[in-house]
C-alpha cells in the first residue's frame, strides 16, 4: 500500500464506522422517516457534546501514555459546584470560568501525583474517582442542588423555536475540537505529548520536561472535563452529585474507537470525536428502534471490541 492510501484507510477507519452505523439505522421502517432528518441530527450532536468535550481531554491524556478514570466524578463535582455558585447568584460567565478552573485544578492534582510521585495514573485517578464523587455528595448534602434559572440552561436545548440553529454546546464542542486538533499536531506542546506517550525515557533524553509536561496535560484535560460538567448541568438544569457514573468509560471508549493506543503515542482528535459520534448515533438509533437499555449497552460493548480489533487488523497485527 502506498503511504497515502494507508493514511486514508488509517484516518478513515472510524469515519467508515460512523457512516455504517448511520446507514444501519436509516434503513428499518421504524426509523426511516425520522432518523435522517436535520432535527434528529441536531439531537444526536447535542447528546454527544458532553462525551465529545471529555474525549478531547482524554485524547491528550491517552496520547501522553496515561489514563484518567475520575472524569465521571469530576463532571458531577463541577456540576454540583456550579449549581451552588448559581444558587449564590453568580453569573453564567463567572460560573463557566469557575467550572473550567475547578476541573483544571483537579487535573493539576492528578498530574502532580502521577508525575511527581511516579505513581500509575490508573491508581491515582481511581482514587480521585472516589474523592471527587464523595466531595460532590458532601457539597450537595446528598441531594440535588437547584437554582433559579440561568442562561446556562439554554446551552444544550434542542427545543428552540427557530428550529434550525444548533445549541451553543455543539458550537463550543466543534470549536474546541478544531483547536485541540491543531494544538496536538502543530505545537511543541502537542508533539512533546506524543513523544512522552511514545517513549518517556527517550523524551527525557531529548530534553523534554517530562514531569512538567505530564502535569500540564492532566491540568489541561481537567479543564475540558470541567466544561463537560458544566454542560451536564446545562442539560439537567440542576446539580446532581450522582450523575455521570461511568462516563469516563464512554469517553475512553470514544477515544479508543477513534484509533488511539492505550499504550500512548498514538491518537487523533478527529478520531475521538467520530468515536463519540458513533456512540451517540448508536444510543439515539437504539432508542428509536425501541430497543431496551440493556440491549444498547451490549451493542456498545461489541462495537468497542470490534473497533480495536479492526484497528489492529489494519495495522497488520500490531496493537
Amino acid at each position, binding site marked *: 500500500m502506498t503511504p497515502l492510501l494507508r493514511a486514508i484507510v488509517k484516518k478513515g477507519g472510524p469515519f467508515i464506522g460512523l457512516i455504517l452505523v448511520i446507514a444501519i439505522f436509516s434503513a428499518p421502517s421504524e426509523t426511516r422517516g425520522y432518523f435522517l432528518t436535520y432535527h434528529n441530527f441536531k439531537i444526536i450532536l447535542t447528546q454527544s457534546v458532553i462525551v465529545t468535550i471529555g474525549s478531547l481531554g482524554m485524547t491528550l491524556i491517552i496520547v501522553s501514555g496515561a489514563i484518567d478514570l475520575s472524569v465521571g466524578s469530576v463532571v458531577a463535582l463541577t456540576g454540583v459546584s456550579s449549581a451552588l455558585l448559581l444558587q449564590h447568584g453568580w453569573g453564567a460567565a463567572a460560573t463557566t470560568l469557575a467550572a473550567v478552573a475547578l476541573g483544571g485544578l483537579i487535573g493539576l492534582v492528578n498530574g502532580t501525583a502521577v508525575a511527581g510521585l511516579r505513581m500509575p495514573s490508573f491508581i491515582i485517578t481511581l482514587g480521585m474517582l472516589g474523592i471527587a464523587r464523595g466531595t460532590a455528595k458532601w457539597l450537595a448534602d446528598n441531594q440535588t442542588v437547584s437554582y433559579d434559572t440561568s442562561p446556562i440552561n439554554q446551552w444544550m436545548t434542542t427545543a428552540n423555536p427557530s428550529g434550525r440553529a444548533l445549541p451553543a454546546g455543539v458550537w463550543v464542542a466543534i470549536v474546541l475540537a478544531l483547536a485541540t486538533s491543531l494544538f496536538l499536531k*502543530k505545537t*511543541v506542546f502537542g508533539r512533546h505529548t*506524543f513523544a512522552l506517550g*511514545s*517513549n518517556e*525515557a*527517550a523524551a*527525557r533524553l*531529548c530534553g523534554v*520536561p517530562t514531569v512538567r509536561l505530564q502535569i500540564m496535560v492532566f491540568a489541561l484535560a481537567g479543564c475540558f472535563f470541567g466544561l463537560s460538567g458544566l454542560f451536564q448541568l446545562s442539560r439537567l438544569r440542576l446539580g446532581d452529585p450522582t450523575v455521570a457514573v461511568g462516563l469516563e468509560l464512554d469517553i475512553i471508549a470514544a477515544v479508543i474507537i477513534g484509533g488511539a493506543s492505550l499504550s500512548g503515542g498514538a491518537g487523533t482528535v478527529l478520531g475521538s470525536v467520530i468515536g463519540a459520534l458513533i456512540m451517540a448515533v448508536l444510543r439515539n438509533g437504539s432508542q428509536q428502534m425501541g430497543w431496551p437499555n440493556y440491549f444498547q449497552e451490549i451493542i456498545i460493548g461489541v462495537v468497542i471490541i470490534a473497533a480495536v480489533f479492526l484497528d489492529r487488523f489494519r495495522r497488520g497485527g500490531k496493537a
Partner: protein
Amino acid sequence: MSGPRLRLGGISKAFGATRALLSVSLQVNAGEVHALVGENGAGKSTLLKILSGAQEPDQGVMELDGEAYRPSGPSDARERGVAMIYQEVTLAPHLSVRENILLGSESSRLGWIDAKRSRERAQGALAVLGYDHFPLERATSSFTIAEQQVIEIARALLLKPRVLIMDEPTSSLTKADTEKLFEVIARLKGQGVSIIYVSHFLEEFGRICDRYTVLKDGENVGTGTMQGATEDHLVSLMTGRQVEDLYPRVERRIGEPVLEASGLERAPRLGRTSFTLRNGEIFGLAGLIGAGRTDLVRAVFGLDRADSGEVAVFGRREDRPTPRKSWGQGLGFLSENRKEEGLMLNLSVRDNMTLTKLGSYGRMGWIDHGRQTAAARRWTQELAVKCANPGQPVGELSGGNQQKVALARLLEHPARILLLDEPTRGIDVGSKAQIYEIIGRLAAAGKSVVLVSSYLPELLGLCDTIGVMHRGELVAVRPRGEWSEPELLRFAVGKD
C-alpha cells in the same frame, strides 16, 4: 553418520513483489558451527524464520538427517530438533530460572508441577552448558543479560536439539561474557549439536566457526571453510565491494578542553571519576559491561544525577546537569538502548530527528511543518537513511537506519560535544562504516566525541585517546598509539 545434518536446496521466498530469497542452499554438518553471513536485508532473517518454522518457503527442499523437514510452526520445528535462540531475550522476567527453562514443557502429574523432577531437568540442561551451581529459584530479571542468555540456551537444550540457531547472541554481551558463550558453543559442538551462527562481529567467525555461507540480496554469494578466509574476504562478499579500511583516517587538530568532568560519583557503579575532553578529540571509553562507562556518560549528560562532582562544559560549571540544560549547552547524547530510550518508535523520522529543538522551527510554540520536514529531509539524504518519507514511523526502519536517525538528532541540534554510547551495536557492516565516517568527519570539523564501545577494534580504529574503566573507575587513559587489544582487555578485567 553419512551426509549432512541439515541440507537446504533451492529455497525461494517472496513477499508480494519483494524477493527475499532466491534459490538459496545451505549445508550444515553434525557438530559443525556454521556462520551465516550477510548485511541487514540480505535475507538472513527470512532464512532463519523458514528454518525455525515461523515461515514457509515458496520453493525448495529441506532435509534434516536425510529426512524431509517441513516444520508446520516453531513448536513443530523444536520437536523435530531445530531450536532457535533469538537476539532479544524472550524470558518471562518474573518467573524463576527453573520455570523459564521448563516453560511449555513442565514436568507434572495431573497438572501439578513435579518440583523434584523439574529441578533435575533444569539443572541437567544448565550442567550441559557448564553452569553447575545456578540459583534455580531466583527470578530471571535479577540476572545479567549474559546469564539470561545462558538460561535461554538451557531452555532450548531441554528438547535435545540437533540444530541450534543463534541469531546475534553476542550483540549485547561484553568481551568476557562472549568468551563464556564461546566455551558453551564449544561444548555443544563437542556433543554433536550443529550450530548456525549469525553475528555482525566478523572476527567471531574465525574464532568459533568451521564453515560459512554468505548471503547478499537474497542469494548465495559464497560458501567455504573458515580456515583461510579473511575478514576482508567476507566483507567483500557481503558488500560486493572492497572495504579498504572501515575506519576513516582524517587529519584533525586537537585543541583546548571543552568538557571537564571532575570527581563524578554515583553509587553503586560509578566511583570518583574525572576526565577531560578536548576540541576535535575522539575519546574512547573501554571496559566490561557494568564497569561504569554508561553511568559516567549518563551522569555527565544529567540523565542520572551524580551523588557528587561537577561538569564544566566550555568552561561553564554545572553541578546539577539535566538533559534539557545539557542540550542547551551544546551536548548531545546517543543512548545504547535504541528501542527503550533512543527513539520514539511509533513517531515519525521527522519528529525523532527534531525533538530536541522543536520550538526553533516556528514561533510562539507553533511548529512550521515545512521547515521541520526540510530539516529531516536534509539528514535522511546526507546520512543515506533508507525511508519512504520523513513522515514514516521510525520503527519501520532497519536497525542501521534507526541508528542513523538517532544520530541525526545530534547533528541537527547541532551538538558540539557528542556522547555516543555503543553507537554501532546491532547494526550491519555497511551502516557501521557510514557511522564511523560521520564520527570522523565531525571530529575533523572541530566537534568532540566521547565514544563508549565494547568493540575494541572500533575504539582502536577511531579514537585519539582511550580510557579503560574497571569497577567504576577510570584506571588508565592513554593516546591510542600506546594501546593494543590485549592491553585494553588486561585493564578492563583488572589484571594490571
